[in-house]
């Protein structure tokens, strides 16, 4: 059980690449690869097309385009086996290739992340089970960053809360088991929310199953006797439905705003070339040879957004208000860097400068891209409508009487603001104050249906099913009571706002002292809950003294684990609260403790079930920086989410237009 040197992210990236390439090697000769759309992006995270080519991949097709041709004998499918529809599509395409081609194809399917019984049944039904060779590609966590692992399940949000399909909980459990098998058991599993509880139960169950395999002598011995881990401290699971409110707000960090305006997928964003200029010559060494593309209107360009870009890693987690300052500073520094060539007199100095030139150019390019992008976002944030929206949001978040905002919302509807935005505002009100008054809700329903089409009756049904938008009278809309015994099930923002200090007005955006900076004054409840586990003294000082002094490092942080001290507060958030200790053989632990000592920094995994926003990531990084001497925080999630994506899960796309 030797821990792999290096971080989880590197390990996972490496492993995913090796797994895929080994499978490709298993298919002899050249081949065509068919990838489903939702896998193409994630695969791009760990393997490049050029590398695939080296392994005999001739062309890559998208499953959804249904245009695989017969140029190669071998056809390889790389598809999610969990998605019944995709499995059917694969079966259809294999059938089609078999029927109308004179080439006899060899088919292979790599099911991701595992082969399922249902997919078997479908292939058998179509009668091609015998004609394909099937393998599994165990892809679970995709490393987006060193500290961010994501399952990249785009549909996990709608699956979980709209269709009530817990498939992604199971996959999450599998993925976390993978981490446990590498590092040992999480000594403590802490969580909040009903789905989180389910996930924890699955983890315990899988551990039992593993034990059973071992005891019946069926598995390899290497997994034998997994112990509580020495280098992890705990796993914290937060269910998205504990805090829908945060994700509905407009994110105000740089990366968050990019996600809100253009959307970020698998670390990439498609941006109009009119904003950021044409695709630059590939930033690699032989750049000058590549032909310059001409900039056309409406063309999109992919921008890579991750920590490999130094400038971006400075900017991404900052509040948007100070992005201009940072850009300015970098521009000035860059200029002085360029100027330094004048002082370079001797040949050695000159050579040094020339050696550094590529880095300067790289920085220069990145600066140009981000300046333009920031300008574009600024144009948006300065608009009258954006300000109106933000005002409604801020008032809701601060706990002002929401009915005063209804006029503004009505005006926004009449001005034909995108439906997503309107729904976000209404859902926000519903989540924060336990539903809308029935009469108001009816009013809004009528206006929205009039403004955006009657098909959105379905949208409202879906939102109600997700418990995002409800009339106040229904049982499921009730807030958790703080006194008395009346029933209720929803997160009580009113109570938590006070008791966890969700509103911090004096936070400085330039030099933030609290996570509330990510929403310019509102601290995400989800992250506050994490702080209740990790930064107890700080939270206590917030509540009692009210002075937002940064937490003094406390050596006693390990003394009160779990939710200890905050049980009552946490009770007002939705769903189950739990803290489970996983024990192992005592003697072995003690032996290891004496061997390794106990002062190493330990890792804390924070798992967001149902999606995480970029603002929450930024806030967690802010905590991670404070905790750096004692802890390492790794963020795990089922996928990245924002308010628009939440709404898209519910919005009905059909309309009554008649095709001619």
């Amino acid at each position: 059980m030797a821990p792999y040197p290096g971080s989880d992210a590197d390990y996972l990236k490496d492993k995913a690449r090796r797994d895929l390439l080994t499978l490709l090697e298993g298919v002899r000769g050249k081949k065509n690869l068919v990838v489903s759309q939702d896998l193409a992006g994630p695969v791009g995270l760990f393997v490049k097309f050029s590398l695939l080519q080296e392994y005999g991949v001739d062309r890559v097709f998208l499953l959804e385009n249904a245009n695989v041709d017969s140029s190669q004998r071998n056809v390889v499918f790389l598809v999610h086996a969990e998605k019944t529809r995709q499995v059917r599509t694969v079966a259809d395409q294999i059938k089609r290739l078999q029927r109308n081609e004179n080439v006899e194809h060899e088919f292979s399917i790599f099911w991701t992340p595992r082969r399922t019984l249902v997919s078997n049944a479908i292939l058998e039904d179509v009668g091609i089970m015998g004609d394909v060779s099937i393998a599994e590609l165990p892809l679970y966590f995709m490393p987006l960053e060193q500290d961010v692992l994501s399952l990249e399940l785009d549909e996990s949000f709608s699956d979980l809360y709209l269709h009530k399909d817990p498939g992604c909980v199971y996959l999450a459990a599998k993925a976390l088991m993978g981490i446990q098998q590498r590092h040992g058991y999480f000594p403590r599993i802490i969580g909040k929310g009903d789905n989180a509880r389910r996930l924890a139960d699955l983890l315990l169950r899988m551990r039992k199953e593993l034990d059973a395999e071992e005891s019946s002598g069926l598995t390899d011995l290497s997994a034998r006797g997994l112990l509580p881990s020495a280098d992890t401290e705990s796993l914290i699971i937060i269910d998205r439905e504990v805090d829908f409110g945060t994700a509905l707000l407009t994110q105000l960090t740089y990366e968050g705003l990019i996600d809100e305006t253009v959307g970020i997928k698998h670390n990439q964003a498609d941006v109009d070339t009119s904003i950021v200029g044409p695709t630059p010559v590939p930033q690699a060494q032989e750049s000058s040879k590549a032909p310059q593309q001409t900039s056309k209107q409406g063309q999109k360009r992919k921008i890579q957004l991750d920590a490999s870009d130094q400038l971006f890693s400075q900017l991404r987690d900052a509040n948007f208000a100070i992005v201009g300052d940072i850009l300015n500073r970098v521009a000035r520094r860059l200029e002085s860097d360029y100027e330094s060539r004048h002082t370079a007199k001797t040949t050695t100095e000159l050579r040094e400068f020339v050696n550094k030139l590529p880095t300067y150019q790289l920085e220069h390019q990145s600066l140009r891209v981000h300046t333009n992008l920031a300008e574009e976002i600024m144009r948006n944030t300065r608009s009258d409508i954006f300000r109106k929206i933000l005002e409604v949001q801020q008032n809701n978040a601060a706990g002002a009487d929401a009915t005063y905002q209804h006029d503004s919302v009505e005006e926004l509807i009449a001005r034909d603001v995108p439906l997503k935005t309107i729904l976000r505002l209404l859902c926000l009100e519903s989540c924060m104050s336990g539903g809308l008054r029935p009469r108001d809700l009816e009013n809004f329903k009528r206006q929205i249906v009039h403004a955006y089409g009657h098909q959105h009756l379905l949208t409202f049904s879906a939102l109600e099913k997700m418990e995002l938008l409800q009339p106040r009278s229904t049982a499921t809309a009730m807030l958790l009571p703080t006194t008395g015994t009346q029933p209720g099930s929803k997160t009580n923002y009113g109570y938590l706002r006070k008791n966890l200090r969700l509103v911090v007005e004096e936070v400085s955006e330039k030099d933030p002292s609290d996570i509330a900076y990510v929403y310019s004054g509102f601290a995400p409840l989800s992250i506050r809950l994490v702080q209740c586990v990790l930064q107890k003294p700080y939270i206590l000082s917030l509540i009692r003294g009210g002075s937002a002094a940064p937490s003094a490092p406390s050596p006693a942080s390990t003394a009160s684990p779990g939710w200890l001290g905050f049980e009552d507060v946490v009770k007002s958030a939705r769903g189950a609260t739990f803290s489970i200790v996983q024990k192992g053989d005592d003697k072995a632990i003690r032996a290891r403790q004496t061997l390794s000592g106990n002062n190493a920094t330990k890792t804390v995994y924070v798992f967001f079930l149902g999606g995480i926003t970029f603002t929450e990531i930024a806030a967690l990084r802010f905590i991670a920086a404070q905790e750096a001497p004692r802890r390492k925080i790794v963020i795990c999630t089922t996928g990245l989410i924002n308010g628009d994506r939440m709404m898209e899960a519910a919005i009905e796309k059909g309309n009554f237009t008649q095709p001619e």
Partner: protein
Amino acid sequence: LDGKPGISFELIAQAAFDEGRTYLATQLLNHEPRAGKQVPLLLNMEEDEIALDKAIESGDNDLVLYVLLRLKTKHPLASFYRMINTRPMASALVETTAREEDTKLLKDLYYQDDRPIDGSNVLLSEALNETDMPRTTEKLHLASRLLADSKDATVVLQQKLLSEASQLLKVQETLDKEIADRSEFVGLSLNETVYRLIRSGYGKRAQKMQSEFKMPEKTYWWLRLRALVAKRDWG
């Protein structure tokens, strides 16, 4: 035997079942912690409901779906509904799969469960998929009829809005015939229709629609303002 290492209850249970001792086999299977091994055997033993429960317990949605597929082909629909009805995860999965491929099943399910809004929603989404007008309105009509005899406030609103939808479609059809050469209005929302009418200079008709559908003054004025600006009509 419980707690001793080196014993696979699955194998023993299999053996017991082969010997024809079904009860013993089920008892033994309770000790088998690996659901993946348990469920197929239970299915073979015709212990269908237990198999379903165990699959749900395992949290493995693939296993649940597999059991559901088997049960659906085996049992008459009514008893299949009964089986899944008490198990929320099972019915959720059935609903999701049915939404893609089998709306008939969905309608039956909602009818048996007495969920009129869900039932009418199925019809509404079917109406959205219809390509010709009479069929669309027919589906809308059916959808609103499902809700007709309820007194619940949300249902009443839903029903009213549904009949409004067909009314709007009818008006738009006439507009298409009278003032546009091709289908231009059908499918727009009410606000978009009014906006387009004003922009093309049919102020009277726009006003008529405003009163017909009881559009609030404020909305109407915003629409008018935007339309006139788009038209550059500063008079």
